[in-house]
């Protein structure tokens, strides 16, 4: 198999916050009725994970499972583990009406960290970060493009966007975190 190449290999920007492109990252989109017993069982058997509650993220041995919409989950794992997990999930699900897709190469992932991370994100996302809890996922927009934010810790987020807008996102994050643009709204 050829070497996976992420959207902006090695991209890093240090300003008011640290912005780092995460490199190749495994992602599986799972769509279906989240109340299906077959789906819950497959998640328990293969991912060793519970189905997350609305806008929540659950952790498991393989990585993380995020609630994307009332009929969609996002499984985040190692890039190389994706084909195996999809195969295992497919056989565990059997004939139930659930679709699985490898979307690893369709996405770009950035890790954002620093005490001013909420201030920086609030410049480009219409989100109330005071009400955004650790362990929550929030799909929104970052300036002109769609993005998903996962709050990993008080001062750390994972941002997921489409690969086709990775350069835009990197440039955008570098611009809004340039020193001199401090806001001081969300003081820790």
């Amino acid at each position, binding site marked *: 198999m050829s070497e996976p190449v992420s959207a902006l290999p090695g991209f890093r920007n240090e300003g008011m916050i640290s912005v780092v492109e995460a490199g190749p990252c495994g992602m599986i989109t799972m769509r279906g009725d989240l109340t299906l017993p077959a789906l819950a069982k497959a998640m328990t058997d293969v991912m060793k994970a519970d189905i997350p509650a609305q806008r929540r993220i659950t952790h498991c041995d393989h990585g993380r499972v995020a609630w994307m*919409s009332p009929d969609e989950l996002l499984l985040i794992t190692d890039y190389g583990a994706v084909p195996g997990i999809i195969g295992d999930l497919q056989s565990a699900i059997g004939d139930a009406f659930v679709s699985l897709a490898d979307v690893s190469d369709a996405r770009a992932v950035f890790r954002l960290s620093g005490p001013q991370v909420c201030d920086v994100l609030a410049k480009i996302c219409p989100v*109330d970060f005071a009400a955004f809890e650790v362990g929550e996922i*929030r799909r929104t927009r970052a300036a002109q493009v769609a993005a998903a934010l996962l709050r990993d810790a008080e001062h750390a987020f994972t941002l997921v966007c489409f690969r086709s807008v990775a350069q835009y996102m990197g440039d955008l994050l570098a611009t809004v975190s340039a020193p001199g643009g401090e806001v001081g709204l969300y003081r820790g």
Partner: protein
Amino acid sequence: MLLLSCPCCGVSAEETEFVNGGEAHLKRFGPGSDDADYESYMFNRKNPMGVHFERWRHVHGCGKWFIAARCTVTLEVFATYPAQTTEPPAEVVARIKARRPDWEGYK
């Protein structure tokens, strides 16, 4: 600015995270219907000054459609509710009546 709460994912956000889908609760008149009904279904839309029912999609969020009852003058949102309804639910109508006693009601 319009602040909407998505009933599908529970997020409250301002309108730029959503996209408007026009008047809600339209009844389709397709092949075999008479011309006047078809014309009305295709082209004629309400444009009230006051209480209005609209389809919205949480385009930058969960991606789902829902319906919002709002005031086009004050931008007050009375309620948002599932798209799988053919007319405003009774509790939504009651809430609007409480806020707008002069409202003539739905339809």
